């Protein structure tokens, strides 16, 4: 069986509030399912690896095949936990180690 290639995305949340891990992920899943439907969302293998609510930074994992789809969905996020927000991708990498090097 062919190995699934993954990509890790470092995200910066731009919002006035301090959303929790769950609220952030709800916004991400909401955007992906709204844009690509439940079938499309199921192909993404989305997972939240790390979330720092103080620094409003997150690391998200997705499959390489659906990277464009996830990036487009993240760009469409307008609000998180009821307050206006934007999610910016600061770096993309194939490993968490390389991602941390890029974001430092």
């Amino acid at each position, binding site marked *: 069986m062919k190995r699934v290639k993954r990509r890790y995305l470092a995200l910066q949340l*731009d*919002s006035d509030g301090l959303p929790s891990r769950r609220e952030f992920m709800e916004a991400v899943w909401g955007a992906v399912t*709204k*844009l690509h439907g439940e079938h499309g969302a199921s192909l993404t293998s989305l997972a939240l690896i790390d979330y720092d609510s103080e620094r409003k930074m997150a690391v998200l994992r997705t499959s390489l095949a659906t990277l*464009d*789809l996830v*990036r*487009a969905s*993240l*760009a*469409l996020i*307008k609000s998180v936990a009821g307050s*206006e*927000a*934007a999610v*910016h*991708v600061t770096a993309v990498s194939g490993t968490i180690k390389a991602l941390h090097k890029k974001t430092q």
Partner: protein
Amino acid sequence: MPRNEVAAVKRVFADLHLCLNVKDAAGTLRTVNKAVALGYGIVAVPLTPEVGVDEVERLRTVCSEAGADFATRVDLQPRTQNELMRQLRRLRRKFEVVCVSCENKAVARQAAKDRRVDLLSFPLLDFRRRFFDRAEAELASNSFAALEVDVKPLLVLEGPMRVRLLSSLRREVAIAKKFHVPVVISSGVSKELLLRKPREMAALAFLFGLDEISGLEAVSQSANLIVERNREKLSSGFVAPGIRVVKEGKDC
């Protein structure tokens, strides 16, 4: 690759439709700073035709202090072909970017074939009045006009309206690609939180059929080319494309 060569190929990103309330100085500064922080090197702000020189200079200063290159832009909304020609005669030499909002087919056709028009924009929500078809694209490909796509409606709309818009944009972008008409992606937003990074704009372009490279070109090269070309035309030494005055006086 040596470091200076890497710098030479680095893209300069441009947002040719940053809607600012020029009366609100603090808001303008905030939005321009945000655009620069997100990675834009050139910003164009739509201005009214009657805008004063001092207002333009103030905006230019704000942008240069923030680290961006400012380009003036005017949006024309003529109702007839003659009105378009009149407005172009009056305003072309005053602004670096001229965008025509095509409200009817006659105006759309005239705008597409006129070499003074830089950007063609169509009503975003009135799908019957989006006249970017094959004939329009053929005319535009022979002039310098590019198709402008604002991402704001994609961010603001939801449900069936966004679905229709995406389907319409996909069709138009496919036609533009076929006829080699450049596509320019701009934000069209006035709120800071609706501003997106250039790479995010390119990611949104994926939704209407532009791949990553074409998407990035639409927010960089295609937009920069318009500004560069018009700056050259508006410079004092310009005579005709490829011809410019290099020296004048009795000793020539």
